[in-house]
C-alpha cells in the first residue's frame, strides 16, 4: 500500500490484480455462463432428440394440424363453433371454457371465503361453529371426489326433462341443466349501456368529492347508497325512456329437451360449485389468519374513537389484514385455476378435456398439444400472480 502512494499513480491501475482464474468476480461469471450453456444444451438435446426420434418412427410433428378441420362437436362454447371449424379453434373453445369456470370460481370463492372467514371469528356461537364445520369438512375431502359427488350424486338426481322443476313460466331446471330466457337486445339498448357507463363515471366523481369534503370538513356523506341509486336508477330510467329495448327469448320444449334461451349445463354448475366450495374453505382460513394478525389494540382504538363494529372491521381491521391475506390468496387463485382441469372427470369441455383430450386423440400429436396446454396454464398463472403482486404492492403498508 505504501509504495503505491509514493509513486503517485492511481491506486488500482498499476497493481496486477489476481490472475483471472483467481478473480472471484470473473470466476463466478464464467461458472454461471458454463452452467447456463449446459442448461441450454441440455434442453436443446431433449428437443432435438424428441424430434429426431419421432420422425424416425413416422410420428407426425409440427403445428400444421391446428389448421385442419376438427370434425367433432363440443358441448358448450362461448364462441361460435361447429364441426367444420379447425383444431386451432377447439383450442380457443377449451381455453375460454377454462377461463370462464376459473374466473367465476375465483369470484365466488373469494366472496364466500371472506364471509366464512369472518363468520368463524363471529361472537355468535352458532355462526362460528357452522363456519368451522364447513371449513373442516370440505377442505379435508379430495376435490375430485367432491366434483364427482356434486355431478353424479346431486345434479343427476334432478328430475328428467319431462318433469322439469319450473320457476315462473320460462325457467326450467332439470338434469340437463338450467334453462332461462335469453335477453335479446333491440335497437336503443345502446342508451342503457350509455347510462350505465355514465352512472359509473358519476359514482367515481361523487366518491372522490365526498372523500375530499370529508377530509376538509369532517362531514360524511352516504356514498354507498347514492352510488347504488345511480348504478341501478340510471340504466333503469334509460331503459324505460328508450322504450324497453330488451325482449326475452324463452326456452321452448323440444322432443328431447329445450331449445332457445340460455342454458347452464350441469357440468359447469357441478364444477363451479365444487371448486368454489373447496377453495373458499382455504380462503376462509387465510382471511381468518389475516384478521387475527391485526393486533387487538387496533380494534380497541377504533372503538375508542367511536367507530361501529362494521366500520371497525371495514376501515381498520380488513385493510391491515389484507397485507397478510393477499400473498396466500394468490396461491389459492392459482390452485383454483389449475384445479379446474379436473373438469375432464365430468364432461365439462375445458381446455384439458377438449384440446388435450379429444383433439390430442384425433391428431395424435401429444408433444405439441401437451406443450401448448402447459403453456396456457403457465401463462394464466403468471398473469394472476403478476396482478396480485401489483395489488399487494399497492395495499402494502406505506410508512410515512
Amino acid at each position, binding site marked *: 500500500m505504501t509504495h503505491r502512494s509514493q509513486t503517485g499513480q492511481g491506486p488500482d491501475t498499476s497493481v496486477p490484480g489476481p490472475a483471472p482464474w483467481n478473480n472471484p468476480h470473473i470466476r463466478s461469471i464464467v461458472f454461471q455462463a458454463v452452467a447456463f450453456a449446459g442448461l441450454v444444451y441440455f434442453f436443446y*438435446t431433449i428437443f432435438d432428440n424428441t424430434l429426431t426420434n419421432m420422425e424416425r*418412427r413416422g410420428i407426425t410433428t409440427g403445428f400444421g394440424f391446428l389448421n385442419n378441420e376438427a370434425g367433432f362437436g363440443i358441448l358448450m362454447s362461448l364462441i361460435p363453433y361447429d364441426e367444420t371449424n379447425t383444431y386451432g379453434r377447439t383450442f380457443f373453445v377449451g381455453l375460454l371454457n377454462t377461463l370462464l369456470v376459473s374466473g367465476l370460481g375465483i369470484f365466488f370463492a373469494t366472496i364466500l371465503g371472506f364471509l366464512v372467514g369472518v363468520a368463524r371469528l363471529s361472537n355468535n356461537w352458532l355462526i362460528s361453529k357452522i363456519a368451522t364445520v364447513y371449513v373442516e369438512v370440505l377442505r379435508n375431502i379430495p376435490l375430485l371426489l367432491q366434483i364427482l359427488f356434486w355431478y353424479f350424486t346431486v345434479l343427476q338426481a334432478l328430475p328428467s326433462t319431462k318433469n322439469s322443476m319450473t320457476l315462473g313460466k320460462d325457467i326450467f331446471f332439470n338434469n340437463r341443466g338450467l334453462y332461462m330466457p335469453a335477453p335479446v337486445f333491440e335497437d336503443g339498448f345502446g342508451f342503457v349501456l350509455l347510462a350505465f357507463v355514465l352512472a359509473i363515471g358519476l359514482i367515481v366523481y361523487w366518491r372522490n368529492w365526498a372523500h375530499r369534503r370529508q377530509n376538509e370538513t369532517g362531514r360524511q356523506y352516504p356514498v354507498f347508497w347514492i352510488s347504488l341509486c345511480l348504478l341501478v336508477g340510471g340504466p333503469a330510467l334509460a331503459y324505460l325512456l328508450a322504450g324497453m329495448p330488451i325482449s326475452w327469448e324463452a326456452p321452448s320444449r323440444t*322432443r328431447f329437451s329445450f331449445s332457445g334461451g340460455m342454458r347452464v349445463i350441469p357440468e359447469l354448475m357441478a364444477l363451479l360449485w365444487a371448486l368454489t366450495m373447496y377453495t373458499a374453505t382455504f380462503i376462509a382460513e387465510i382471511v381468518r389468519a389475516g384478521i387475527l394478525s391485526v393486533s387487538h389494540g387496533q380494534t380497541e382504538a377504533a372503538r375508542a374513537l367511536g367507530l361501529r363494529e362494521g366500520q371497525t372491521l371495514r376501515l381498520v381491521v380488513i385493510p391491515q389484514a389484507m397485507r397478510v391475506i393477499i400473498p396466500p390468496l394468490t396461491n389459492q387463485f392459482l390452485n383454483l385455476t389449475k384445479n379446474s382441469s379436473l373438469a375432464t372427470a365430468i*364432461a365439462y369441455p375445458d381446455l384439458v378435456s377438449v384440446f388435450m383430450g379429444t383433439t390430442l386423440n384425433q391428431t395424435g400429436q401429444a408433444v405439441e398439444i401437451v406443450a401448448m396446454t402447459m403453456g396456457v396454464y403457465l401463462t394464466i398463472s403468471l398473469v394472476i400472480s403478476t396482478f396480485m403482486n401489483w395489488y399487494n404492492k399497492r395495499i402494502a403498508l406505506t410508512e410515512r
Partner: protein
Amino acid sequence: MLQRMGGYGVIIFREEFKMKKSFRVLTAFAAAALLSSAANASTLDDVRKKGAVTCGVSTGLPGFSLADNKNHWAGLDVDVCRAVAAAVLGDASKVKYTPLTAKERFTALQSGEIDMLSRNTTWTLTRDASLGLNFAGVNYYDGQGFMVSKSLGVKSARELDGAAFCIQAGTTTELNLADYFRENKMKYKPVVFDTSDQSVKGFESGRCDALTSDQSQLYALRIKLSKPENAIVLPEVISKEPLGPVVRQGDDVWFNIVKWSLFAMVNAEGMGITSDNVDKMKSSTNPGIRRLLGVEGDMGKKLGINADWAYQVIKQVGNYSQAFERNVGMGSPLKIARGLNALWSNGGIQYAPPVR
C-alpha cells in the same frame, strides 16, 4: 402418472442419442429419472428378457377386456395378448396388463410403456399413417350404434334430432357421430366422458338421451346397467369399425409375431383345430395342419420364435371361434352373433392368410 411421464422420457431418450461424452453423466442421470421401463429396439428381446408381454387393454369392457376381483383379465382383446404370450413365451398367462383409457392408449404404445395394444381400437388411416403405429389385423369387425332407453320411444337413429349423446373421449365415435348428424342435417349435443364407465353412468342418470359407441361395446355396456332390459340398441350402424391389435412401427419382427398369433387363431378355426383336439391334430396327415402346429416346416423359425408357437396359442387360448363364443358370443352374457365376424367360408369376413 409418473409412469406416463416416463413414457415421454422414453420417446425423448431412446435410440439415437447424439451426445458428447462430457455430458453423458448429466444426461444419463436425467434419463434415469425419466425412464420408467427399459425399452430397446427389439420388442421380442425385451419381452423375452422380461418374461412377459406388456399389453395395453381397456379399463374394463365386458367381453373384450375386463378384470375380475382377483385381477384376472378375460375377454376377446385379452385373448390376443394371451395368444402372443403363448406364441413367444410358451405361456399364455405371462401377460402384464396395463389398463388404459382411450386417450392414453397411443401414447403408452408410442413411448414403449406397453409392447402391444389390444384395446378395441379402430383401424383408421390417420392412426395407421401418422401415429407411428401398425395395425396387426382385425380381431373384431364392428360398427357404431346407438343405445337408448326404451321409455324414450325411439325406433331409429333418424329420430334423434336434438338429442344429447354420452360418448367416451378420444374415440372415432366422436367423429362418426358428428359426420352422421351433419350428413342428415340434424343437431346433437355431445357429452364427452373420460372412461366408458362414466359415460354409462351419465346415460343411466339421464344426462343424455342416447349412448353411442361401437355396437359390441353397447351390448357390453348394456349388461353393466342396473336394468339392462330398459335399454335397447337401435338397428342403425353408422360406421365401419375394424378393431384390432396395434404395435409400434419399425419393429417388423414383433409386428409379424402379433399379426400371425391372431392369424393362427383364425386359421385354426378354419382347419377345425380347437384347444381340445389340438394334441390329436398333431398327428394329422393334413400338411397345412402339420405346418401350423410346427410338426413340419420351420414356420416358428421364420417368425423368430419356437416351432410350436401356434400349438401353444391354440392349446392355451383356443381358436378364434372358441375365443369369440367364450367372451362375446353365445357362451357369454353378451350373446353377440358371429355376423361379420364369421369365417369367410361361413358368410363372414374373418379371413387369415395361409401358413405356408
